[in-house]
């Protein structure tokens, strides 16, 4: 039972192993706090959409399943969107269009189609949590690396906490801007994927 949960975190990590859901991963991992916010939103949507899809799996007709998944997913995305706008306006502004875009996030649709539609409710919830946490971990690690190198801070919050100054003042004057630009995102994810494969190969060897 718990194998389902942990599989989503390491062995089938959606971002680093399956390479799905890359669009939000690359776009919002410019700071650790943004990444965490995005991760929390995805965990919420993924878990509840898996729950609903799995509980109605016997009555959802095969030919109409994709539109139905989308409706279920967009319901939860709308909830997240409005809650975020009301209580965390700064974060909501930073994530921008990528919150509504969770609707078409292939991790969520992929788990609904590939797992929740075929498995009982308990397993589906665990799978949703596991994949969501896997996504959050990947994007949080990326956000941490990119923010520390690209900005010199860690966990800075828009309009609030200005972040831990990890690398000192000299670095803050000349941060590696490249890291918070799009190519930096591709570079960091390439390193993480490479590292993941390296350790996977070592462990199985």
């Amino acid at each position, binding site marked *: 039972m718990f194998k389902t949960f942990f599989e989503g975190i390491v062995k089938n990590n959606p971002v680093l192993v399956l390479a799905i859901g890359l669009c939000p991963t690359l776009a919002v991992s410019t700071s650790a706090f943004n990444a965490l916010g995005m991760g929390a939103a995805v965990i919420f949507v993924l878990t509840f959409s898996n729950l609903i899809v799995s509980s109605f799996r016997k009555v959802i007709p095969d030919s109409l399943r994709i539109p139905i998944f989308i409706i279920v997913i967009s319901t939860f995305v709308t909830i997240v969107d409005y809650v975020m706008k009301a209580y965390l306006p700064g974060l909501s502004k930073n994530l921008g269009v990528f919150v509504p875009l969770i609707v078409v996030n292939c991790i969520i649709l992929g788990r609904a189609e590939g797992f929740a539609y075929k498995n009982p409710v308990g397993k589906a919830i665990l799978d949703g949590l596991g994949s969501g946490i896997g996504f959050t971990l990947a994007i949080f690690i990326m956000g941490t690396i990119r923010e520390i190198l690209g900005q010199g801070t860690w966990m800075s919050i828009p309009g609030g906490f200005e972040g831990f100054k990890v690398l000192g003042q000299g670095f803050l004057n*000349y941060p590696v*801007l*490249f890291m918070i*630009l799009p*190519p930096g995102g591709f*570079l960091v994810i390439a390193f993480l994927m490479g590292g993941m494969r390296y350790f996977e190969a070592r462990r199985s060897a």
Partner: protein
Amino acid sequence: MYISSSPHIRKDWNVKKIMYGVVIALMPAFIGSIYFFGWRAAYLTFLSVVTAVLTEYLFQKITKRKITAFDGSAIITGILLAFNIPVKSPWWLPVVGSFFAILVAKQFFGGLGYNIFNPALAGRAFVMASWPQIMTGRWSAPLHGSISGIDGITSATPLNLLKLHATDPAVLSRINSPEMLKNLFIGNVGGCIGETSALLLLIGAIFLFVMRYADWRISVGYIGTVFVVAWIFYLTGLTPAGPLFHILSGGVFLGGLFMATDMVTSPVTPAGRWIFGIAGGLICMLIRVWGGYPEGVSYSILFMNMFVPLLDRVRPKYLGEVKK
């Protein structure tokens, strides 16, 4: 009698010989950079080369590969990277740039012969994206001249003058003056360490062409296209500077002679090389006239690097090939 299969004509070429040939070809421009910008130019170049070689050596040592760090290719990357930064850069800029160029753009792609992008240009793109304030805002005048190449104007490099002050009548009247063109040709203007002197770069490049270590087709295609396109743009009023100004300013000679001709990241067939050079020159002019940056040489070459696998399919007909 000893009979072997073709090829029958052999040359005693090897990587080391070619690479050190290129290093020698870069020497006139290097000595010129010391003359124009002082010893700091040599210091930054030295740091860049040492970092490049050391990075390559350590990577190959750690990953237990064959050590090829001393074949000269890392030295070239180091020199070219240093040639691409302003002399007022802090010491760590060439170090970080070289490190990135060798580690990410070269070794991670498989080392010499497998890299898609010219490592020095990839390194430059990295430092350019990371520290634009250093790369574009800190020009210094050559020791015996002014930044702009014109007496009395000390605010900008020739290309910045073109981009930012192109409507100023004082600039317009002198941008195509013999004084300006002479300074551009000799290299007595502000700019990156090794890019300013068209003359000294040309001397080195002619050595390369004679030794056939670089293909003149790419260089002629590149610089020639910049010339022709600049001429057309000049006549139609799209740019106030004439074709000579455009080919002599910025990095056209450095890029067109030394970076576009990199054997690894340019096409293998003559036809492919013509297309590579001409398209690169065209992109450079498009960036200069309509782009956000004053200079487009490095991005135009990086852009064309991506098309090399495609251009390698432009090939002559095989002998005896049957039409399908």
